[in-house]
């Protein structure tokens, strides 16, 4: 029994030591990442300072407590003293606590002032949180794109082995130049999201109707991974943030390519599209943007995500179909895609869903072209 007790006590004493030794290692597997920016390094330093102050206070208080528990245990014949107050002691530890807090408050305020700065950046990027993906728009160059999770559903469901960057990889990362002051303007399209990159120590809520600002200045090229940190619905865990910091020249080339691509996209709208071209484009758009909710087989997850197979709208009402894609459905998870995607994308995905899953054979099989979407937009503008 005595032996068991000794082992047990040893275990209890060692457990916190094991745990707390982990935090001393600077490995970001256990501790806050130091990050790559001046601000993230200051914040890490502040975090460790406050942590150590807490450790010291904890060691003092707990030593006195456990020493008292051991020393004044009744089984060793301790007799209780008869005091129950000491005015100066009370004043003393109140003052001491206040002083420690002032000691903490000074560097905290300094770091806060350093981190808080909403002046314009050399590069300004509008970040919009959508259910469940991020949209990035370079305000100076008026180009933008969506950034979707690229981990496959099979990995999530455990049908294939998980990759190294499971749930931390996207189809198209945000690209920013190094050694440049980059300002982020952060907002939400539907619900509140929160854009977080630990290595920059930037976390800002993306709130519909508000534009929050944050900034960073990354010294070294690299890939930095973050996450959405405000509960935003079913796929909250599946909309990671990936930022690629590159040298200025590479960044300029990237932007030039984006601008050219956007121009090409505008040309596509006026082109005459065949059904097969629309179908092919629509199928890949559907897989990236629609299948998460409506499923690859189009059957959705009723009642939250309605089935597209054999529905009145996808079979017989192409006007309503366009309207839903363009405007979204109030009070549901169906977003308005019209503002964020090109006419070609909208037209092709409508055409695809009107043809796929034998909707085409059973319904009217109407082909919707980019020109139809342009016509719809013109009608609405009137």
């Amino acid at each position, binding site marked *: 029994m005595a032996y068991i007790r000794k082992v047990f006590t040893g275990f209890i004493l060692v*457990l*916190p030591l094991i*745990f707390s030794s982990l*935090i001393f290692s600077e490995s*970001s*597997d*256990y501790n*806050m*990442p130091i990050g790559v920016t001046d601000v993230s390094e200051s*914040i890490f330093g502040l975090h460790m300072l*406050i942590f150590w102050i*807490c450790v010291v206070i*904890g060691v003092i208080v707990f030593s006195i*407590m456990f020493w*008292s*528990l051991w020393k*004044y*245990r*009744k089984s060793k014949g301790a007799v*209780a003293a008869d*005091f*129950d*107050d*000491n005015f100066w002691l*009370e004043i003393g530890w*109140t003052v001491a*606590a206040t002083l420690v*807090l002032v000691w903490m*408050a000074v560097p*905290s*305020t300094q*770091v*806060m002032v350093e*981190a*808080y700065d909403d002046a314009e950046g050399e590069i300004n990027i509008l970040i919009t949180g959508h259910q469940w993906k991020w949209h990035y728009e370079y305000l100076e160059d008026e180009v933008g794109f969506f950034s979707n999770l690229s981990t496959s559903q099979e990995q999530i*469901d455990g049908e294939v082995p998980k990759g190294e960057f499971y*749930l931390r990889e996207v189809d198209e990362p945000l690209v920013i130049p190094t050694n440049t002051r980059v300002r982020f303007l952060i907002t939400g399209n539907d*619900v*509140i999201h*929160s854009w977080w990159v*630990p290595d920059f120590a930037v*976390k800002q*809520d993306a*709130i*519909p*109707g*508000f534009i929050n600002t944050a900034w960073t200045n990354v010294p070294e090229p690299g890939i930095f991974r*973050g*996450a*959405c*940190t405000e*509960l*935003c619905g*079913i796929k*909250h*865990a599946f909309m990671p943030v990936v930022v690629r910091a590159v040298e200025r020249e590479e960044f300029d080339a990237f932007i030039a390519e984006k601008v050219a691509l956007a121009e090409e996209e505008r040309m596509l709208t006026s082109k005459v599209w065949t059904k097969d071209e629309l179908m092919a484009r629509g199928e890949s758009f559907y897989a990236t943007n629609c299948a998460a909710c409506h499923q690859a087989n189009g059957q959705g997850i009723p*009642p939250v995500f309605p089935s597209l197979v054999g529905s009145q709208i996808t079979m017989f009402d192409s006007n309503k179909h366009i309207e839903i894609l363009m405007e979204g459905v*109030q*009070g549901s*998870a169906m977003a308005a895609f019209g503002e964020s995607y090109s006419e070609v994308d909208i037209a092709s995905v409508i055409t695809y869903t009107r043809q796929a899953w034998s909707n085409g054979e059973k319904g009217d099989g109407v082909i919707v072209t980019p020109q139809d979407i342009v016509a719809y937009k013109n009608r609405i503008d009137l």
Partner: protein
Amino acid sequence: MSTVVESHDHGHHGPAKGLSRWLFTTNHKDIGTLYLWFSFIMLFIGGAMAMVIRAELFQPGLQIVQPEFFNQMTTNHGLIMVFGVIMPAFVGLANWMLPMQIGAPDMALPRLNNLSFWLLPMAFGILISTLFMPEGGPNFGWTFYAPLSTTYAPSTVNFFIFSVHIMGVSSILGSINIITTIFNMRAPGMTLMKMPLFVWSWLITAYLLIAVMPVLAGVVTMMLMDINFGTSFFNAAGGGDPVLFQHVFWFFGHPEVYIMILPAFGIVSHIIETFSRKPIFGYSSMVYAMASIAILSFVVWAHHMFTVGMPLAGELFFMYSTMLIAIPTGVKVFNWVATMFRGSITFETPMLFSIAFVALFTIGGFSGLMLAIVPADFQYHDTYFVVAHFHYVLVPGALFGIIAAAYYWLPKWTGNMYDETLGKLHFWLTFISVNVTFFPMHFVGLAGMPRRYPDYALQFADFNALISVGAFMFGLTQLLFLFIVIKTIRSGKQAKPEVWEGAGDLGLEWTLSSPPPYHSFTVQPQVK
């Protein structure tokens, strides 16, 4: 009045028989028992939900539940633990102990007391029933931020709103009763500054409840209007403000946090003085500390929202005000330690839970202080570091306080001693598993795992597996607690009136027989 009472048959002082005893009871002990059993049942329901969460998080990937159901589990786990376990358990303890501690026969408003309890099963029946509806239950987190909880919510959100309203009414009625009882029914000679600390803690808590429950009712009513009547309080498209929701919610939410801890402060103070055989150190500073915590709780709410984009002055104000709370809280911890210092200490189960309370609650306090530092909070916010923090103050904090109270007063309530060996076994299993569960959460949070994630990146896998193992162990251990409570009710060594050595001088409840008479003090005791 007295003639009417005397004309009754005073031969029976016992309760009615059968179900009607519990349905129609106006007796403070019966209602206290109802509250405690209700919260015990809810502990297992909310705990089962935590087990689902931990089972899913045992490995990366989606194995057991889909994210839709996972979100319902996190939401309902939080709501049930906050409103269905911690709060009712404290009200149950108040019902049992306040009249006995202040020398009264019963609560001041017994019929109101019955109503305030029976509203609760209705509220939680409605809430839990939503899980079985086609669209599923609330899935927007226990903090139900708009517009996820309004425009984007399942239609069952209306049931949720109704149930929150009922819970609020129940809490307000209970608080009115407690305040009335404390102010009007104290024994002669018991001045305010002679009241037991548990009574003080509940007086302050009851005022907090009356102040903030209407705010909660207000915010859910605004949601109801937004959802059903076309208003736009929180809808940006209609000129509303989603951040307004968070301000109003946390104006309720932060005092709510102290509602869940202050009564535990009172309980632990009694237990530490009993088993240190030495009166509580710094009684008056304990009272002032609780009052300051309560007052400060109204000016710190936005520390839950440091990332919503406040101006610099706002961030700094809420950082400083939050740091101030560490002062009265620290004073309480110092006072508990000073009470143990030069005492004559024994380690019965309630004392073990109370010592663990002081140690682990303090750890939760430290992480709270770290979270108050705004720039650092940019990294901590909405990660598992926060989950670790509030579970440290709510599980080894509030819940340990409740469990300690149960062991401390169970012999008084039932007249039977609990099984000390089993009690200690329960303590050690709980103590170990609680730390295995919640301590590693600090690490996964710092390393970057956000909260409310049904699936996570691979580098968090080892810690999550460990956390889940701890959680299952913690969950199973509480079945042992249930067994011990039932065993004590049914049998056990006869408890003396003072139950604990030397407790007779510590409070009026220990002057009554064990179990106490049905109408606690029929003759008012005199407090010197």
